[in-house]
């Protein structure tokens, strides 16, 4: 019995022989889960901290006593030392919602859809770990707007539902992050962690969309996907480039120096994105689709931002 079969038996779902979520993927998925568990060993399950101050048992902070506060919350030890009446604040435990937002625009489908495939694998891996941690996981695709979505679900057994959802992804359309963000926030009012997996080739700019999500109190993790083959086309000479999403055309003569300039421009673009994300304190990961997806996921685990 293979690991995939074992997982399938445990989780009650079939294993596709190949495809995006094949045997090898499942093997790696189980490994990632083990690593994730190891990183956060000792923590109780379902102990994702939300930032909500509530009536939990864990001390969070102090504030001054205000008329009407519960006397039982007054920290008398502090009063005895400082003659100040301060009230103890407690963190309220609640389940973390993890939203996996996968870019399914036309640019993601170029080059045999390597970027989209990679994005789905990373999203599925992240979703599996989250489900294993009893977090709520929802998924949605987007292009020029929010696409079909998978409602929040919980439990490891739901992973195949996640697989099936991603396998049914249809690509096409232009990337419109801002419209997507607005629709997403409207659709999913419960705040949580949003992992945006995209190449960020938004004609109108990626900043507005990401900002909107931040403004809506979502914790945004940006995963920018890059396909190296887009940086080294085999053609030379007179060509007509056609934007896969907008259809805009541009005639140019592709030479080695021109290609070198393009690579530098692309690198600058990626650096801009990174700098922007850092400036907004959004965890940012740039990944080449030629690297194994589990390497990216592990990097995300280690650098933090996803597992807390």
């Amino acid at each position, binding site marked *: 019995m293979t690991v995939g079969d074992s997982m399938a038996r445990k989780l009650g779902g079939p294993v596709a022989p190949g495809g995006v979520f094949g045997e090898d993927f499942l093997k790696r998925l189980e490994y990632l889960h083990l690593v994730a568990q190891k990183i956060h060993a000792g923590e109780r399950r379902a102990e994702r901290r939300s930032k909500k101050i509530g009536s939990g048992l864990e001390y969070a902070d102090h504030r001054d006593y205000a008329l009407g506060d519960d006397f039982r919350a007054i920290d008398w030890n502090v009063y005895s030392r400082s003659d100040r009446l301060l009230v103890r604040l407690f963190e309220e435990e609640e389940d973390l919602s993890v939203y996996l937002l996968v870019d399914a625009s*036309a*640019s*993601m489908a*170029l080059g045999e859809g390597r970027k989209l495939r990679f994005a789905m694998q990373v999203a599925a891996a992240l979703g599996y770990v989250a489900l294993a941690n009893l977090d709520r996981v929802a998924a949605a695709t987007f292009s020029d707007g929010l696409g079909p979505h998978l409602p929040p679900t919980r439990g490891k057994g739901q992973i195949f539902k996640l697989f099936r959802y991603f396998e049914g992804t249809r690509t096409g359309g232009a990337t419109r992050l801002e419209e997507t963000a607005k629709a997403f926030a409207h659709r999913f009012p419960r705040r949580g962690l949003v992992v945006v997996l995209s*190449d960020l*080739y938004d*004609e109108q700019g990626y900043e507005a969309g990401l900002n909107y999500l931040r403004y809506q109190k979502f914790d945004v993790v940006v995963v920018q996907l890059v*396909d190296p083959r*887009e940086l080294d*086309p085999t*053609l*030379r*000479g*007179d*060509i*007509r*480039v*056609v*934007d*896969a*999403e*907008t259809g*805009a*055309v*541009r*005639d*140019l*003569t*592709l*030479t*080695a120096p*021109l290609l070198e*300039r*393009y690579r530098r*421009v*692309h690198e600058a*673009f990626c650096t801009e994105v990174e700098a922007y994300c850092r400036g907004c304190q959004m965890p940012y990961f740039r990944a080449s689709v030629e690297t194994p997806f589990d390497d990216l996921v592990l990097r995300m685990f280690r650098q933090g931002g996803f597992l807390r």
Partner: protein
Amino acid sequence: MIFEGLAPDAVFRIFGAAAAVLVALYLLRVRRRRVQVPFAKLWNRVVQPSAANAWWRWLKRLFSLLLQLIVAALIALALGKPIFPAGELSSPLSGCRAADAPPSPEMRHTVLVVDTTASLGATDVPGGRLGAALDAARRVIDSREPQEHILLATASGGLSVLSPFLDDSAALLDLLVTGVRPQPRGGALAGVAPALKALLAGRAAPRVVLVTDGDAPPWPAGALGELAWEAVVVAPREARLSDGAGAVQGNLAVAAFEARPYLDDPLTYELYLRVANHGPVATQVDVALASAGQGDTPEAAVDAASPFEALVLDVPAQGEVEHVLRHVEVPAERVLVRIRPREPQVYADALAADDLGLAVLPPRRRLRVQLVSPGNLYVEAALFVREQVSYEWIRPEQWQGPGSYDLTILDRFVPPGPLPAGNYLILAPPADHSPVAVDVSAGPVAAPELRRVADAHPIVWKVSFEDLNVGSMARLVPAPGDVVLAASTDGAPAMVLHQSQAGVKAVVWAFDVANSDLPLRYAFPLLLVNTLGWFYAEEATLRSGRVAGEDWALPLPVGSSGSGPPLDAIDVRSPRGGEQRAPVVEGRALVHAGEVGFWTIDPNGEAPWRVASSFRSPEESALRLADAQWPIWVPPAPRRDEMDAPAPLWSDVWRLALVAAAAILVLEWWTYQRRMTV
């Protein structure tokens, strides 16, 4: 610069066409390849529109077009095969001018002419004259200088070109072996001089090298103009095999071989043979007569020949012997005669080409005679009894010309004006119109006593004029070339054979038969029969055998055109199957017959007839070395430092052009691959 390949205008036309095609292809908008990219906005940051870039890109494409045009021009130039005559090209390696450069082989053009007249087939030199000629030609080709172009040709009456000007010795040697053969004809070298001058006109350093056996005299002074020429004589006197311990070298030849029909004998023929001995000693000759086998070539005729007669002739040194075989029953239409020395170990026949004679038996038919006379029962009676003769009698006032009659007998009548072409027997012509002049000043010859003069002539052969009484006869004055057949004892011509260039062939009797007792003699019908037979045989002989290599004027038989208009051309087939269309002028077909064998003449496609063609050339058969001064060809001294050196690359511009074209193609490919020009 000289173009040895295509002419300059052809080169320009080819380049023009190629350039038009190339420009058209460049003018056609090249469809850009469409490439989908994920984010064109990034490319917009890379490529900024720039007027400077635009014209630079246009220039890059123009550069590619220019390279293609240069390649097309170089290839077109190479097709013209240009060469620089000596002195016009500097050496690119040394950088010096041609005048300052060390001596280099000069460009020169040589026509190598091999004399292929029949004497080349003689075997009186070691290895045969043909072998010696091929060896000599081979030496000339092997000593070819690096810049020398040689044209190979043969001469036998006319010039036959076997190759263009080549610098490929191997190709020339191949052509030498396959193309040089003795031809069954002679011919003076003077006839090819105009062709040689035309071939070498405008060529650098032209010259002629002649390979000959020396039997034909060289070109007379000035015949080749300014052309330099040299000769290789392959059969000089010292090389010819001489007598000694071996056989005497000589040559026997069939000088004539004809078949003549008899007027009154439909079953037999008269065969006339003349054998010549060009050797230094008399010899006996075996003569074999045979029916020729099937096939028109001499080889086929000889291979399947059926002998029917053999004889031996004694032929004196440097002399000829005539022999007539009378009343020979010939079993076939085509006959041949072969001669060979009776004792070949004593007398060696050096040339075999002239040992064969071919003849075709002339067809038999009735002789058509027109008698123009006031009335002459004697002549009519003599004609009437001849089965092979049909005659028509008309009065002089009814005369309209010889028409298609084989013979016209004019009795005491000659029409005014020159006689039309034809055969005539003229009896007692009036003085004022006789084709043979009549001297009236001295008056007629009274009571002449006649005797034969031309004893062997067929017309008077075996005719006796003894005791013949003739009342009187006119005084004929024969012209030069006329043959006196009979005369009076004091020399006054009585019977004259006259032939004119206007085609008149006439036997003229100076006396009136009615004024003699000739009609009462046996000689009278005999004379008439001989005369008729002679005219009959003469015409038949014209078609029985001809000489190869000559231009024939064959008289067409009466009725060849049938009921249609007169023929203006007829089909002729050579012994080796070559077809030609021979024009017909005044009833004679003009045929150029270069082959030995049996030719087929087909006037109307219904009744073809054959003509035998034999090699006959006393000059060639004599195998005599011409008394001439030959400028002897001397092979050039080999250049030690360049004996095996190939021709310099820059001497042949076409090679340079092709190399340059290939280099530019590589350059254009390299720039295209790196997208420098697209």
